[in-house]
């Protein structure tokens, strides 16, 4: 089936199998490999992107469901060669180590601040519940998100 999605400002159309997940569409058809896959139960959040402005796990959605939609991936955050404030906050606060969960974590964190621009530490921890990180113990991720919120 044919699916058209606007990804990072460019509209793309591809013939895909109906069972294709949005994450596979992004990685294999749009060739944007910044969005990672960390599980097969929608538990880890590594594949989080924005669909029509909302943070979603792109493994929970069929590409067909996103037909006609607008997707932003981690590659779409930089503007004029500048990182997004959330990306900068992660860098400045050592909010990443291996970096595999990071694209999803950053997208989820931006989604969190879109809904709650001045979260408490506890709200950040609860808001990122769906995104797992194995390296940082979350300490500096939480710090990064709070720093971005306070900018």
């Amino acid at each position, binding site marked *: 089936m044919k699916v058209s999605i606007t990804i990072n400002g460019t509209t793309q159309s591809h013939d895909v199998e109906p069972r294709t997940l949005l994450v596979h569409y992004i990685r294999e058809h749009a060739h944007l490999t910044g969005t*990672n*896959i960390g599980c097969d139960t929608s538990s880890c959040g590594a594949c989080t992107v924005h669909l029509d402005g909302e943070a979603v796990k792109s493994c929970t959605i069929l590409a067909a469901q996103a037909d006609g939609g607008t997707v932003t991936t981690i*590659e779409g955050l930089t503007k004029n060669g500048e990182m997004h404030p959330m990306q900068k906050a992660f860098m400045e606060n*050592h909010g990443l180590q*291996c*970096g*595999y*969960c990071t694209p999803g974590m950053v997208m989820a964190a931006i989604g969190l601040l879109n809904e709650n621009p001045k979260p408490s530490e506890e709200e950040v921890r609860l808001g990122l519940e769906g995104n797992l990180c194995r*390296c940082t113990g979350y300490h*500096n991720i939480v710090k990064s998100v709070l720093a971005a919120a306070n900018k």
Partner: protein
Amino acid sequence: MSITEERTNNVIGQRMLRREDPALLTGEAKFVNDLAIPGALHLAVLRSPYAHARIKSIDVSDAASMPGVVAVYTGKDLQSTWAAPMPCAWPVTPDMKNPAHYPLAVDKACYVGDGVAAVLATSESASRDAIDAIDVVYEPLPAVIDLEDALSDRVVIHDAIGTNTSYTWNLKVEAAEGAVDQAFKNAAFTVSERYVQQRLIPMAMEPRAVAAVPQPFGGDVTLYSATQVPHILKVMTAITLGIPEHQMRVVAPSVGGGFGSKLDVYAEELLCVALARKHGAPVRWVEERSENTQATIHGRGQIQNIELAADKDGRLTAVRVRLIGDMGAYLQLVTPGVPLLGAFLYAGVYDLPQAYDFSCTSVFTTMTPTDAYRGAGRPEATYAIEVAMDALARAMGIDPYELRKRNYIKKEQFYDASGNPTGYTAFHGLNYDSGDHLAAAEKAMQHADYVALRKAQATQNVPGARKRLGVGMTSYFEMCGLAPSRVLASLNYGAGGWESATVRVLPTSKVQVVTGTSPHGQGHETSWAMIAAEKLGVAPEDVDVLHSDTAIAPLGLDTYGSRSLAVGGVAIAGACDKVIDKARLIAAHQLECAAEDLQFEKGTFSVKGSPDKAVPIAAIAFAAFTAHNLPDGVEPNLEAQYTHDPKNFSWPFGTHVCVVEVDTETGKVDVLKYVAVDDCGNQINPLIVEGQVHGGVVQGMAQALYEEAVYDGDGNLKTSNLAEYLVPAACDVPPITTDFTVTPSTTNQLGVKGIGEAGTIGAASAVMNAVIDALSGLGITTLDMPASPNNVWKAIQAAQGGTK
């Protein structure tokens, strides 16, 4: 910034932001599964659904005819492909039993997840669809999941070796024969405890992924793998497949965490290389998470019996340990060595006389093979001694901190009578390089406000209180920086423990550092550039760090065991010294003075006493490149290679304090506060050090509170994905208070020790001591990990039932 500019060299110790981050933050970084490899075939592996079963027959005909399928292989089909079985590099005893282990099982599957057939197809989905169409007839056999049951040989898993026991390894140290028995006889206090180190699943966020790219007419093969050990993998792939080693190249691109789980040589790596050569086409494989939980190694898996003897003041007089180690179905790369990495540490940071009796018997079970997982042997040892110390304190009726203070190896014991640093030679003969355990403990207690906590606890934990407060501490140390090659030889390890570095000053004065370490989240590019910048007097941004590709960095022993800085970083410093030595000869030639009259400071050689006569290393590099005017006998170019074989392990240490509140009605444990005071000697980049501690602590806390690989009686893994295996999320863990003491190592020039595993080594026992402390007033003195609501609630019910 040019290296000729005046600048101070105090790069080491700065909280420098990581150069790795922009690529990882923008999606530019390439993990193995991100690599575009045109024409690649996709491998999928059919895995046994039985823990233990004979393979009666395999019918691949339906699978072979499915769309996109190129070939289907069984274990039998590939038997002649392997020049050797899969490697175990650590035959810990001469009589260790090691069953032959091949990438695909041939006659028998020995755990759920054991590969029995492989499909090559033109797409990943076609390969996965096809494995479902393979028809295997199994004859199920009984599973063996209990270690004591395994030991009984009721069911023998590997027919060819005739027993489930792989080896028994002993470390008995006595001042005189019978000293241990005597100490227990004479002891004023003894404790005898049994702990279970549950199986853990490492769960690096990036599952494994492999791509093998052959050059059908050149004979070379490049193996891309999500591995911690490209160098070891290269050697082992060559041996296992009979490929000339110089035709193998291994690349580890961005790697998404390891924690030991990527310190291995795996079936899928060997299958991809073998099939890529057979088909003359690239072959790739990516692991699904539910495969990862079964086909990638597990960690821990020990039953520990520990006994302590103490005199009337609580000073330890003897330690006796009996372990059973769970090897899983086969021995992977260093599986049998994991208990040995803890074997020397069961007396902890305490001044024990020569009365130590350790023995470990390791057994095969029908579960996923175990191997090194963050800390590997050392968290287990620390847990046993530190939880047993609390038990001893309870038996004596004294404060656990007071008991530790009476036993710590004292700071002055690391020095001789004249105050020279000698290290502390322990009862087993190993020398602990440096330490000040009391200082770290005092600092941790100040952060925790220990005295106030005990007061609050007395107020809160009244009879009938629903929420009970608990305080737990751990004073840990560890042997890391693996490792002095001669010590490894004495432990029968199959390789050395050195690390290599090459430092090259390019004609334009930029610097290349080539390292044999292989980072997967540790920020080596940033820290290694800082070391070279400090040594050479250049700006860190002028230093590039090359790694993780055996064609670029041919020598190395990779990253594990908190070795990268203490061995690999020190190698870089050593290579810089050699570069400076060579540059000094050229500078002396240019300045027409004797080499020993030159001083090297801030990147410039100058004549002592005549600071005007000076030449920067940048000019020397260019002179070395043009080679127009070099002193006789000096080769062109400014480059040096250095291999560092450490004189000793490094022995980081510290004290962690955990404060919990336990809800006695639900069994839920809330961590209110966690304080980690660690000492890893000098720090290159404190930002990175703190990050390592945060992550390490949470992994240890996860063992204490959340994680367990659960098998049912038939050997099925019930926690086979991230919905069932509870990796903590941000809301499940507290912020971590970190602080440090700095007691430099005396056995390497940077004064550094490892820090990658320290947090994990300290945390599980600190958390469990806090939980038990909270519940001890209810009569609970022992509790198995994880202290999940269910386990805690059951323990409370049992204790209350017992007192009725």
